[in-house]
């Protein structure tokens, strides 16, 4: 097992969820039988239940964003594996409001299919179900690939904003429209100087020569399309910000929410340095980062890397972003 502190590899996720529920017993419960984490104190004004999920190994995504003002439930799969449709179906039934349930789904084939099967089952039971697909990763932006951009760091921002909107009593169709709009204003890009440790082998999931940087990694330790020679943070950040700003078509007076996200194996010291460089580059373009988040939000086990996410914001978006929330891994206002 190498580096990991576990009882047994196949027990890690279950053990972690039991511990997570114990640590945050005032805010969430862990339904061990059906496999989901549920918020204990959703806002009484909320009419649509918010459900997300995906593979484990991305902590604090997804369970860390269950709580007042964010998700009503999250379904964790095994490490880097989609949750089962049964988990999603059970969680959705448990948290659906009179306005139905909304799924926040990252654009990965397994997640789409399993959430889709759950949605078909919900429809069969007469529970209205909508979906917001998060697809922000510019590294996978290509006309040649039918699967489209992967869903990564933007998931956190979409979940925060939709949570605040759902708390206003917004209906399902409006939430789908809002979430789709917000997801469309988000772009991310990730780099790594070292692979995550494979839980199966205890070895790095891929080998990088010394001084090489993978430019455009995903959150499951997928190798990137490009390997770059080592360069200064300033040069690297310039490439990344350029790609993001181009893809978003950021205007000179744009206001952005900036997420500097650690992938699990990078120090805060480095992440703040990244934030400084990126903010300076955005300022230079006239695109102001009006809100910033720094830390490990969407990880890939212990991957040595970071991602940048930009959200082109407007007043309404920022209002939802600023609304209080009390989920275990959200560091905004608690109300």
């Amino acid at each position: 097992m190498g580096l990991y502190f576990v009882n047994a590899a196949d027990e890690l996720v279950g053990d972690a969820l039991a511990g997570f529920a114990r640590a945050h017993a005032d805010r969430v419960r862990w339904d061990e039988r059906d496999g989901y984490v549920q918020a204990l104190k959703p806002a009484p004004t909320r009419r649509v239940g918010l459900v997300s999920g995906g593979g484990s190994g991305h902590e604090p995504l997804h369970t860390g964003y269950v709580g007042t003002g964010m998700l009503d439930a999250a379904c964790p799969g095994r490490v880097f594996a989609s949750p089962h449709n049964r988990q999603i179906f059970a969680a959705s039934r448990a948290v659906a409001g009179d306005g139905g349930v909304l799924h926040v789904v990252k654009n990965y084939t397994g997640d789409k299919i399993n959430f889709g099967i759950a949605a078909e089952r919900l429809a069969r039971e007469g529970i209205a179900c909508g979906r917001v697909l998060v697809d922000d990763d510019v590294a996978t932006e290509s006309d040649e690939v039918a699967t489209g951009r992967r869903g990564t760091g933007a998931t956190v921002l979409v979940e925060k904003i939709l949570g605040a909107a759902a708390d206003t009593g917004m209906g399902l169709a409006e939430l789908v429209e809002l979430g789709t709009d917000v997801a469309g204003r988000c772009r991310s890009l990730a780099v790594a100087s070292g692979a995550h440790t494979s839980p199966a082998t205890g070895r790095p999931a891929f080998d990088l020569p010394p001084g090489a940087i993978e430019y455009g990694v995903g959150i499951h330790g997928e190798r990137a399309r490009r390997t770059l020679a080592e360069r200064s943070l300033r040069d690297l950040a310039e490439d990344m910000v350029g790609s993001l700003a181009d893809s978003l078509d950021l205007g000179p007076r744009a206001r952005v929410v900036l997420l500097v996200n650690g992938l699990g194996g990078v120090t805060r010291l480095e992440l703040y340095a990244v934030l400084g460089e990126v903010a300076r580059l955005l300022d230079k373009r006239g695109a102001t980062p009006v809100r910033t988040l720094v830390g490990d939000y969407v990880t890939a086990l212990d991957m040595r890397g970071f991602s940048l996410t930009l959200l082109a914001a407007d007043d309404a978006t920022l209002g939802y972003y600023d609304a209080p929330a009390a989920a275990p891994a959200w560091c905004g206002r608690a109300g």
Partner: protein
Amino acid sequence: MLTSTDTGFPEFSEPFRSTGFTDFTEGWVRRFAASAAATEAELTALDQQVGDGDFGANLVAGLQAALRRLGAPGVPASPPAVPASPAVPAPPAWPLEAAASAFLDEVGGTSGPLFGLLLQEIAVSVAAGDGPPAVALATGAGGGLAAIQRVGEAAVGDKTLVDALAPACDALAAQARTAPGDPSAAAAEGARAAWGGVRSTARFTARRGRASYLGERAAGVPDPGAVGIALLFASAATTVPTLAPYLG
């Protein structure tokens, strides 16, 4: 007894004939389980060439779970809440509902639950009871195809189970128009069309699913999920002991 016909597919000289729709649906699920068990090794061998090798095991596991929900062989199928009684026959949809929920709830991966979705749509049509058996089958299978395409986004030609299910649905619909009362004949036509679809997948380069990562390397190998669909419809009439004669 196996005989060969000019279609190139072996046929059973004495296919199962049901005396009622409930006998038909329960026998269908039981024979599907027997067909999957008999061909598991062949399915595994196919999936090891184009997927991750677990399709046969998942299909068998789902059908074993369905049989557990149905009760022991020879015991009439009935919903747990309604005790079996000669005076109160079990509804014909129940065996299909049992199989659907077994696949949806107890099978991992993605193709197993997609089979659950198909069986659920057929069960819903059968339960609605608003048409002759072959019409209910055709309507349900068509609903299942639509649901699977909504979820998985695969089209005909992508080298997935849709390549067998779509032609099977067309054949079922045609048969429902000419012989609406005979579910066995409809399923047999559906199976014939599905096997044709299976053979077509061997020629395709995969665009969806696990085989899509292999590109040209999956050429020549029929899609295991498509084989599973053909087994489903073939089992409505008979147990399939081996895949070899059908794969061409």
